[in-house]
C-alpha cells in the first residue's frame, strides 16, 4: 500500500510540474496534451473502480463521458456556463443513465455484461447522432470554456489544467476512500463470490448497482473536462472505440489499484503522441506494443515495471 501511495504522489507531482516545464521549454502545447491525459485519467479511474474492484467489465463507459460532455454543451447553449452547475448536471444525468442501464445490465454476468453495456453505449451514441438540435453527428462547438465562480479564468490553459488536475485528485481520493470502506470490501467480496455474499445477508446486486452509478457519475466528470479541453462536443466521444481505449488504459496500468488506471491513461496517451510524432503508422506500433505487453505481463505495464524492478505487489 505504501508503494502505491508513493506512486500516486509521484504521478500527481509529475502532472503538477507540467505547466512550469512547458513554460520553461517554451512549449505550451504540452499543457494541452496533459489536460487531455487528465480527462482520460478521470474516466479510466472511474472504470477501474467497478472493473478492478467489482469485476464489472463495462465496455460502454464512453457513454458517460459523452453525457458529461453534452451536459456542458447543452447547458452552455442555454446560457448556463458555470462549471459547478455543469458538473452537477453531468453527475445527475450520468447517474440516472447508470441507474437504469445498470439495473438491467447487472442481471447478466461475464461476457454478457461486457456486451450489454456496449449495447447501451451504442444506443446513447446513436441517440446523440440523431439529435439535430445539438449538431447531430457534426457535434457542436462551444463558444468558450465554462466559467468558474463567474470568472472566465478557465480560458487560460494553465489554470484550466490545474482545475482539471484538482478534479482528478479529488476523485482519486474519493475513490480511494470508497475502496477502503466497508462498501468497498463488500464490493470486492461480491466480485469473488456472489453466492457467499448472498448467504451472509448482503445483496451484491444493490452494492454493484451503487458502484456502477458512482463510476458512471465519475466518468461524466471526464466528459466535462474533455468538452472544455477541446471546446467541442460530438457523439464521437461515445464511440465504442473510446470505451475500448478506456479498458486498454485500465488494463495497461494494472487492474484494481486506482493509481494504475491514471498511470495507464498517461502511458497510453503519451505513447500515442510519441509514436505519432515519428510515424504515420503509429497505430501499427501501438497495437504491437499492446499485444506485446499483454503477452509479456499478466498485470499490464504496472506489472511489467514491478517485475523488471524486482518489486513485489
Amino acid at each position: 500500500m505504501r508503494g502505491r501511495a508513493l506512486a500516486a504522489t509521484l504521478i500527481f507531482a509529475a502532472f503538477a510540474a507540467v505547466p512550469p516545464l512547458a513554460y520553461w521549454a517554451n512549449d505550451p502545447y504540452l499543457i494541452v496534451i496533459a489536460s487531455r491525459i487528465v480527462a482520460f485519467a478521470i474516466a479510466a479511474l472511474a472504470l477501474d473502480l467497478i472493473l478492478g474492484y467489482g469485476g464489472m467489465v463495462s465496455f460502454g463507459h464512453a457513454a458517460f463521458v459523452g453525457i458529461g460532455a453534452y451536459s456542458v454543451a447543452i447547458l452552455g447553449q442555454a446560457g448556463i456556463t458555470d462549471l459547478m452547475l455543469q458538473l452537477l448536471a453531468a453527475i445527475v444525468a450520468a447517474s440516472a443513465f447508470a441507474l437504469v442501464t445498470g439495473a438491467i445490465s447487472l442481471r447478466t454476468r461475464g461476457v454478457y455484461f461486457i456486451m450489454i453495456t456496449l449495447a447501451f453505449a451504442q444506443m446513447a451514441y446513436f441517440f446523440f447522432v440523431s439529435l439535430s438540435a445539438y449538431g447531430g453527428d457534426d457535434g457542436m462547438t462551444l463558444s468558450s470554456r465554462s466559467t468558474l465562480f463567474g470568472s472566465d479564468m478557465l480560458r487560460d490553459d494553465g489554470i484550466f489544467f490545474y482545475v482539471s488536475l484538482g478534479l482528478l485528485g479529488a476523485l482519486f481520493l474519493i475513490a480511494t476512500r470508497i475502496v477502503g470502506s466497508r462498501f468497498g470490501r463488500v464490493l470486492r467480496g461480491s466480485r469473488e463470490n456472489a453466492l457467499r455474499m448472498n448467504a451472509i445477508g448482503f445483496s451484491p446486486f444493490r452494492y454493484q448497482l451503487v458502484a456502477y452509478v458512482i463510476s458512471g457519475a465519475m466518468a461524466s466528470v471526464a466528459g466535462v473536462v474533455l468538452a472544455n479541453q477541446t471546446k467541442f462536443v460530438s457523439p464521437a466521444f461515445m464511440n465504442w472505440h473510446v470505451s475500448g481505449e478506456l479498458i486498454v488504459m485500465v488494463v495497461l496500468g494494472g487492474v484494481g489499484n486506482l493509481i494504475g488506471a491514471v498511470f495507464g491513461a498517461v502511458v497510453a496517451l503519451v505513447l500515442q503522441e510519441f509514436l505519432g510524432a515519428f510515424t504515420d503508422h503509429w497505430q501499427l506500433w501501438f497495437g504491437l506494443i499492446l499485444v506485446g505487453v499483454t503477452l509479456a505481463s499478466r498485470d499490464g505495464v504496472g506489472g511489467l515495471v514491478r517485475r523488471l524492478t524486482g518489486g513485489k505487489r
Partner: protein
Amino acid sequence: MTNLFLLQLLNGVQLGILLFLIAAGLTLVFGIMDFVNLAHGVIYMVGAYLLVSFARMTGGYWTGLALTLPTVLILGLALELLVFRHLYDRSHLDQVLATFGLVMVVTEAVQIIWGAAPLTAAMPEALSGSIPLIGPLRYPVFRLAIIAAGLLTGLGLWYIITRTRIGMRLRAGATHRGIVSALGVDIGKLFSLIFAFGAMLAGFAGALVAPILSVDPGMGESVLILAFVVIVIGGIGSIKGAFAGALLVGIVDTLGRSFGPIVLRAVLEPAAAGQAGRVLAPMLVYILMAMVLAVRPAGLFGAKA
C-alpha cells in the same frame, strides 16, 4: 405491400446469413475456448482484401476464392500460434487488450498493403444480374447465392458438430474442457483447429461480400459489433443460437428500417414519426439485445451464465 414485405424479409434473411457466417466462428471460439476475440472482424476484412487481390491476380472470382480460403486458414493458424494460444488461460481483460491491439495492427497493415481507398472485386459472370421475383420486384442472383452459401455452410457446420467425432469433442470441450483432455484428446490441437476454421469462415464471409460491398479498412469494425450482438442474443457457444440470433438481427434490422417509419406514422405525427424513426432505427438491434438479455441473461440458447 405484402410483396414488399416478403422481399424485405428475404433481405433480412440475407443479412442474417452473412452475420451468421461471421458469428459462427466467433461463437465457437468464444463458447468453447472462453476467449474474447475482438480481432475476428479484421479477419473478415482480410478475407475480402485477399479475394480482391487474388481475383485480380488470377482473373477470376472462383480462383480467387480458392486461394483466399487456405490463405485465411493459414493466417488463422499463425495468429493462434503466435498470439492467441498464449492467452487462453488469461482473463477476458487481457484478451480484450491483446485483440484490441491486434485490430489496430491488422487495420493499419491493411492500409499499408492495399491503401486506404475502397476496393472492389468483380462479380462472377454466372452470378451477376437479377431475377424477377414478384411483380416488378427483382432480386440479385448473387444475394441468392450468398443465402445458399450461408445455408450450406450452416448445414455443414451442423453436420460436423452433431455427427462427427470432432463435433462431439467440441461440444464436450465446451462444458468439461479438462475432462476431455484427461480422456486423451489433445485439446490444444483441437483449439488451433477451431480457431483456424473460425477464421476461415470469417474470411469466407469477407470473400463473399467483396463483390457487393466496398472493401475498405473500416469494414471489419462495423460487422464485429453486430456479430457480437448476434452471438450474445443467441447464447454464447451455441451454433444454433448464432443462427437464430443472426436471422433475428438481420430481419429486425431490415424490417425496422423499412417498415418502422410506416408503423410509427400510424401512431405519431408525420414529422415526429420521421424524427423518432431516425432515432430508433439504428438503435433497434441494441434494444433487441438489451430486451433479450433482460429476459434471458444468457441469451436465447445459452447455457446458464
